[in-house]
């Protein structure tokens, strides 16, 4: 059993959580939308800009060499964090997880998918892993199928063989941004590979919270985003197996992604730069590496149990305090449930819930969470969502429970 987190000490690492210019402390319960950054991430980017900045892979002078070295070191840091076997070739920096998935749909999909081909997604996908495939459906006439959501708020994996028959790609989230469901990837990967399909995993909601071991899971594509894992905005990554990346055409065209250009054509660059057109987000990559260093310093093996204990506390307190609350998510579980809590609060609209909570400094998300098909499946237009991270503790949950009492009083 590892040592529990000292959350009061952790909070001090995050400037925004100890803002002095507000009259009450910020109760930040929206990390599933975007996490906050520790000072070390901000410092890493500042130091880079103040001492090292130059364009990468171009200059022969010292700071340009150093900037290139730091960018490539950041790539290896991010790759190792998710267990990538060959991080220096297989990790492509993108703008975010959305762009990483679009890269797969655009480059792999347009080369490998033909009219009538099958792509299987799930009913709980974020729009980021839905719309790129709907676009390909419109463009190429592919068929989309969906792994259904079960009554226990887990994916129903009972008929994967039939669902995956003839599929070329299976794309699933590793953890739902709405329900807090952590998807059991192993049977999906096994059934997909048995059907001859490659597997794309949207890891945006898992990588910040749990240890990801790509070599062990056997997935083929994995997308993550920096800003949900204590890093800056504007940086994400796609990991893919080297042979898949080699066989894919480029995504965006421009500088950096070419080996040679003539007026008649071009030869693409080596991996991973073949997929990184234009000047990359250098400072953001360095910031993301600093975020990974911070997470590794705290230890994912401590973050997971911390979040599990906290979500269990939250579910108990919310259910005990309010008969009117209805939680959309699976039962407590140390492995199959994350720290995302979506709920309906009687008939009060989520916008009103979030607005009133904001007055006591409690930041929660209200809306459809970029998962409109899932909202329809749940029979609601929106939910209120509180989401937890390493810097939250029981006092944040208590503030949420107290704030909801103001909501109840105002709207009852």
């Amino acid at each position: 059993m590892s040592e529990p987190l000292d959350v009061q000490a952790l909070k001090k690492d995050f400037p925004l959580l100890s803002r002095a210019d507000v009259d009450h402390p910020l109760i930040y319960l929206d990390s599933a939308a975007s996490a906050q950054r520790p000072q070390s991430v901000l410092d890493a980017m500042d130091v880079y800009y103040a001492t090292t900045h130059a364009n990468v892979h171009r200059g022969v002078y010292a700071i340009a060499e150093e900037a290139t070295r730091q960018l490539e070191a950041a790539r290896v840091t991010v790759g190792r964090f998710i267990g990538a076997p060959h991080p220096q070739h297989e990790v492509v920096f993108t703008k975010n997880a959305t762009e990483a998935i679009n890269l797969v749909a655009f480059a792999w999909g347009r080369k490998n998918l033909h009219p009538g081909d099958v792509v299987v997604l799930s009913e709980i996908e974020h729009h980021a892993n839905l719309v790129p495939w709907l676009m390909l459906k419109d463009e190429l006439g592919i068929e989309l199928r969906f792994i259904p959501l079960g009554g226990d708020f887990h994916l129903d994996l009972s008929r994967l063989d039939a669902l995956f028959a003839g599929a070329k790609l299976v794309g699933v989230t590793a953890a739902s941004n709405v329900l807090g469901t952590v998807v059991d990837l192993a049977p999906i990967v096994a059934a997909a590979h048995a059907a001859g399909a490659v597997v794309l995993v949207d890891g945006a909601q898992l990588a910040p919270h749990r240890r990801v071991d790509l070599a062990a899971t056997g997935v083929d594509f994995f997308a993550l985003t920096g800003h949900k894992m204590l890093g800056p905005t504007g940086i994400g990554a796609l990991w893919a197996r080297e042979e898949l990346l080699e066989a894919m055409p480029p995504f965006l065209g421009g500088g950096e992604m070419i080996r040679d250009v003539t007026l008649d054509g071009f030869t693409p660059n080596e991996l991973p730069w073949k997929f990184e057109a234009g000047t990359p987000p250098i400072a953001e990559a360095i910031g993301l590496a600093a975020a990974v260093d911070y997470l590794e310093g705290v230890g994912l093996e401590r973050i997971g149990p911390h979040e599990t204990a906290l979500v269990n506390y939250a579910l108990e307190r919310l259910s005990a305090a309010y008969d009117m609350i209805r939680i959309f998510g699976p039962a407590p579980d140390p492995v199959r449930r994350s720290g995302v809590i979506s709920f309906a609060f009687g008939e009060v609209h989520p916008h009103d819930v979030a607005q009133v909570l904001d007055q006591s400094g409690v930041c929660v998300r209200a809306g459809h969470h970029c998962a409109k098909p899932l909202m329809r499946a749940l029979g609601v237009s929106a939910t209120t969502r509180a989401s937890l991270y390493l810097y939250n503790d029981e006092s944040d949950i208590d503030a949420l429970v107290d704030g909801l009492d103001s909501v109840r009083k105002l709207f009852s």
Partner: protein
Amino acid sequence: MNELEDLYREIILDHYRSPRNRGELPVPPAHRVEGFNPLCGDEIVIYLDVRDGILADLRISGRGCSISQSSASMMSAAVKGLPLDEVRQLVRSFKSMMAIDESPAEEGGAVSEPIDPATLGELGALQGVVKFPVRIKCATLAWNALVQGLDEITAGVVASA
């Protein structure tokens, strides 16, 4: 809690709890128009019965937050029975209160005269929404749908539903 009380005035909560002119009208002769807020998925459906240049009757259905629902309810009470030009004038006044200026740019883009909320009757209670910019879209949802419906009627579009 002051800003919050300014947003959730008692009259707003009253319209939210007891919405006026709720329901549907047979189409045709009524015209049906939908409004949609992609931010939160709120939907509103308005049924408009226009006769001889007068908005003789209207009904509202759909679902949404307290601000969008109460604004729709107050709107329905305010515009029912008015000649269409007065309906459009009221829409302009309401949007002006919501800090939305729709005077044409060729007129120099000048900001139109700020409206005195007191002249808008009950609708003046929605003035507090301006301090919460995200919620302005909630407050104007029904109004935008109303304008769209009137435009469609003027253009002679026949409702398909």
